[in-house]
C-alpha cells in the first residue's frame, strides 16, 4: 500500500509542474493560434497554399501592394513608381532607393529579375501567376529599374504583382543556399530546404523556424527599411480546431485565435478579455448547375435553373453561418467594383413553381447533387447541401446528395462528369479577372467543368481582361454580372466572413482578403 501511495505522489508531482508554468515569457511576441496545417513549403517560388501568404507577406515584400482599406487601389511597395507603355505591353518599375533586405543590402533590379525568373523556371504552381499573364521577359535597365514585357495587354498585371508569390528575394542569399534562376531551375534549384526554415526578404519580420504541423516562428527585422515594427515577433501556432484556439486565447497563452467559426465567436463575445475582428473575405461558395445537354437533365433548360435559383432560401443558408456571411449576385464578390448585390436572386417559391411548370416539370424531377469535403464559414459542405436539398424539395425537385472526398470530387468535377455541384472559389490576387477568367469560358476554368457555353459571358470576359479604363471596365463588369444572373449557372450561396478572436490588448489588427492579415501595424 505504501508503494501505491508513492505512485500517487509521482502523479501529484507531475501535476505540480503545470502550476509552475509562468517561466520566461516572450514579452512582445504575438501568438496566433489557428489551423495552419496547409503549409507545404515556405519558398515563395514554390508555395501555393494559404498560410504561406501570411508568412510571405510578413517576411517578404512585393513591388506593389493593395491595402485592405481600398481594394481597388494599387499602392507602392518596393517600387516607388511604375509606368505602363502606350500599347499596354511594357511595365517599368522603379525601386525605392531606401528599400533594403533584412541583411542590410539594398533591393536591386537584379534581385527582382532573379526572383521572378526563378519563380518562372521553378515551373511550380505559382509560376502560373506569370505564365497566365503572358509574361514574356524581364530586363534590368539600371540598378533601380526593371522592365517587364508581356505577350498581350493585361490590365490585371499590376494586381498580380501584389501576389506574395511575386515577392522579391535577395539573390545573393538564395544563390548561396543553392538557388538558381536557370532554365532548368525545377531540377537544379536547391534553396527550398533553406527557404523553408529561413527568409531572404525585406519584410518587417524574419522567418526563424517552421516546425511542420506545430508552429511557424518569425522575429522582428531590426533592419526593416521602413523602421522596425512594434511586435518583437509573431508565432503561428497550429491548433486543430477553433475551440482549442479559443481556449488558448482565453487563458492568455495566445493573443489571436485565427479564423474561428460562428459558434466559437459567440462564445468569445461573452468574454470581456476578448474581442472579435470580422473581415469580409472574397471567398465564395456557389451552387453550380450545368446548362449542358450532355447530361440529359431538365437543368439544361434555363427556366429550370432559374426556378432552382428562386427556390433557395438564401437567408436560411446565411443563418447557418451564424450570420457571418453575405452573398453577391454572381461570381464576382462584394467589394470588387462592378459587383451589384441588387441583382441577387431572392426566394420566391411561386415564381419557381411557375418556371418549372413552364419548362414542363410541374411536379419537379430528381437528380444528384455532388459535393466534396471541407467547409465554408464554418459550415460543412454536407450541411449546406442538406439545406439546398430541403429548399428544392419544396418545389418538387428531389436531390440525392453524393458526397466524396475532396480529391475524388475534384477529379470527377474536372473530368466534366458532374451536372450539379456545391464548390468554393478563393482568389490569389485582387483583380476582377480572378473570377471572370475562370467562370466564363467553354474551354477553360470552372465553367469548362460544368460544360457552360455562353458566348455572351465569354465575350464580356475577354473585353474585361483587355480593358484598361477602370470606368469602362466597371460598366463591363456590371453587364457581366447581369449576364451571369440571366444564365443562372453559378448561383453564389455565401461570401465568407473571416472571424478572428483577439485578446482585448491587441491593437491595429486588420483583416486582408488576400494576405489574411498584416502584422506590421499590430501592437499589444
Amino acid at each position: 500500500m505504501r508503494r501505491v501511495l508513492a505512485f500517487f505522489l509521482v502523479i501529484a508531482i507531475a501535476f505540480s509542474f503545470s502550476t509552475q508554468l509562468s517561466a520566461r515569457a516572450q514579452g512582445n511576441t504575438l501568438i496566433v493560434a489557428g489551423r495552419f496545417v496547409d503549409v507545404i513549403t515556405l519558398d515563395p517560388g514554390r508555395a501555393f497554399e494559404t498560410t504561406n501568404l501570411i508568412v510571405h507577406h510578413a517576411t517578404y515584400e512585393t513591388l506593389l501592394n493593395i491595402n485592405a482599406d481600398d481594394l481597388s487601389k494599387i499602392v507602392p511597395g518596393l517600387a516607388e513608381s511604375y509606368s505602363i507603355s502606350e500599347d499596354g505591353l511594357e511595365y517599368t518599375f522603379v525601386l525605392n532607393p531606401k528599400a533594403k533586405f533584412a541583411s542590410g543590402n539594398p533591393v536591386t533590379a537584379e534581385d527582382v529579375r532573379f526572383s521572378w525568373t526563378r519563380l518562372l523556371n521553378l515551373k511550380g504552381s505559382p509560376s502560373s501567376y506569370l505564365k497566365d499573364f503572358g509574361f514574356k521577359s524581364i530586363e534590368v535597365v539600371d540598378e533601380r529599374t526593371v522592365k517587364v514585357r508581356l505577350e498581350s495587354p493585361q490590365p490585371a498585371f499590376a494586381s498580380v504583382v501584389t501576389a506574395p508569390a511575386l515577392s522579391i528575394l535577395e539573390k545573393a542569399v538564395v544563390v548561396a543556399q543553392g538557388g538558381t534562376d536557370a532554365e532548368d531551375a525545377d531540377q537544379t534549384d536547391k534553396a527550398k530546404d533553406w527557404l523553408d526554415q529561413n527568409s531572404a526578404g525585406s519584410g518587417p519580420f524574419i522567418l526563424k523556424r517552421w516546425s511542420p504541423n506545430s508552429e511557424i516562428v518569425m522575429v522582428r527585422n531590426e533592419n526593416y527599411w521602413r523602421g522596425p515594427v512594434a511586435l518583437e515577433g509573431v508565432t503561428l501556432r497550429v491548433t486543430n480546431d477553433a475551440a482549442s484556439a479559443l481556449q488558448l486565447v482565453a487563458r492568455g497563452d495566445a493573443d489571436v485565435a485565427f479564423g474561428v467559426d460562428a459558434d466559437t465567436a459567440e462564445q468569445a463575445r461573452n468574454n470581456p478579455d476578448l474581442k472579435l475582428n470580422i473581415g469580409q473575405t472574397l471567398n465564395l461558395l456557389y451552387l453550380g448547375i450545368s446548362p449542358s445537354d450532355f447530361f440529359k437533365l431538365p437543368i439544361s433548360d434555363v427556366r429550370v435553373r432559374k426556378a432552382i435559383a428562386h427556390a433557395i432560401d438564401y437567408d436560411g443558408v446565411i443563418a447557418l453561418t451564424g450570420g457571418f456571411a453575405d452573398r453577391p449576385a454572381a461570381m464576382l464578390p462584394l467589394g470588387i467594383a462592378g459587383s451589384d448585390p441588387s441583382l441577387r436572386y431572392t426566394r420566391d417559391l411561386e415564381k419557381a413553381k411557375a418556371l418549372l411548370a413552364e419548362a414542363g416539370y410541374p411536379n419537379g424531377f430528381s437528380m444528384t447533387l455532388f459535393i466534396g469535403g471541407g467547409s465554408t464559414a464554418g459550415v460543412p459542405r454536407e450541411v449546406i447541401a442538406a439545406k439546398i436539398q430541403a429548399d428544392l424539395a419544396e418545389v418538387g425537385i428531389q436531390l440525392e446528395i453524393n458526397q466524396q472526398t475532396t480529391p475524388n470530387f475534384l477529379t470527377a468535377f474536372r473530368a466534366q462528369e458532374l451536372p450539379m455541384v456545391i464548390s468554393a472559389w478563393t482568389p490569389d490576387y485582387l483583380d476582377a479577372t480572378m473570377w471572370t477568367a475562370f467562370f466564363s469560358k467553354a474551354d477553360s476554368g470552372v465553367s469548362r467543368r460544368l460544360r457552360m457555353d455562353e458566348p455572351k459571358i465569354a465575350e464580356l470576359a475577354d473585353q474585361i481582361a483587355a480593358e484598361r479604363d477602370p470606368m469602362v471596365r466597371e460598366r463591363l463588369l456590371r453587364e457581366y454580372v447581369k449576364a451571369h444572373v440571366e444564365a443562372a449557372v453559378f448561383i453564389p450561396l455565401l461570401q465568407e466572413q473571416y472571424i478572428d478572436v483577439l485578446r482585448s490588448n491587441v491593437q491595429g489588427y486588420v483583416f486582408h482578403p488576400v494576405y489574411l492579415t498584416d502584422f506590421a501595424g499590430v501592437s499589444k
Partner: protein
Amino acid sequence: MSLVRYIARRLILTIPMLFGITLVLFLIYNIVQVDPLVMIIGERAMDNPHVVEAAIRKWGLDRPVWEQYITYLVNILRGDLGTSFLTRRPVLDDLLTHLPATVELAVSSLLFAVVLGIPLGIVAGIYFGSLFDRSVWLISLLNGSLPPFWTGLIFLFVFYYSLGITAGPGRFPPRMERPPMVTGLLTVDSLIAGDVAALNGALSHLVLPTVILGGFTLALVLRVTRAAIVEEMRREYIRTARSKGLAERLVVVRHALRNALLPLITIIGLAFAGLLSGAVMTETVFDWAGLGQYLVRAAASLDYPAIQGGTLLIAVIYVVVNLCVDILYSILDPRVRHG
C-alpha cells in the same frame, strides 16, 4: 535452437511480410481511380499545361504502373521512401520530423500505464473482491471504455480552460523559447540544453495527454495484472510457498508476479507498438504534431508515398516490438524457443 538463431530466423521472416505490405498498398492505390495530379499541383494549376507536364515528368506518372512499383522497391532498399505529394519533402524526413512527438507521448504514456497499472493490479488482485479492488476495477473499466477524444476534450476544458491548473494543447508553452533541437524529444532536448524551465514546460504539456492516452493502456495493464495475480494466487505452488513461511510480499513478487509477467509483456508490447503508431485521436485533441496526425492527413489527401512510407514504418515498429516481446519471452521461458 540457440537464441541467436531464433532471432535470425524471426528477422528473415519479416522480409516477405514487409514486401507483401508494399505490394498490397500499391495495388489498393492503383485500384482507386483518382488522379494524384490534383493533389500534387492543386486544383487551379491543373488548367496550366506547362505546370501539369512538368509535374507528370517529375513524379514519374507517365511510366507504367509496374515500373513505378519496381522503382519504389529499389528506392526503399536504398533507404529512400519517396517524396510526399502533399509536403513535397522526402517521406523519411517527414516521418522523422513527426516521430519524436509520438515517441515522447508513447513512452510517457506507457510509463504512466505500467508504473501505475501493475502495482494497482497486484493490490487489486491480492485483495480480490475488496472495496479497493472493485473501485479500481470500475475506474479501469471507465478508462478503457471512454473514448480518448471525448475525455481529452473534457479534461482540457476542465483542467486547462476552466481551472487553469494544467497546461493546454500543444507540446510546449507557446510563449516560451524552445530548446535547441537535437533529438526532437522536447524533454530530452531541454535536459541536453540544461534548461530546467523548458523541461518543466515540456513535462507540463505531457501531463494531460499522458493521462488520457496512458489511461487507456493503464486500464488494460491493470486488468491483465489483476486477473493474472488472482489466477496465480489460487495455484498450489503459492500455497506451498506460503506454507514454507515465506513472507506474503515475497510470495507475490517472486512467485505470482513472475508467472503473471508473460501475458503482461505481450499486452505491454502490443500497447507500446500501438502507441508508437500514433494515437490519432489524442494527438488531434491535444494538437500534438505526431505521426498519427501526419498519416491521417496523408490518407485524407491520398498522399500515396506518405501512406506507404508510414505504413511500412508502422509495420517495422510492430515487427520490432513483437521481436522484442518474443525474445523476452524466450529468455523468461526457454520452452518458447523450441515451440
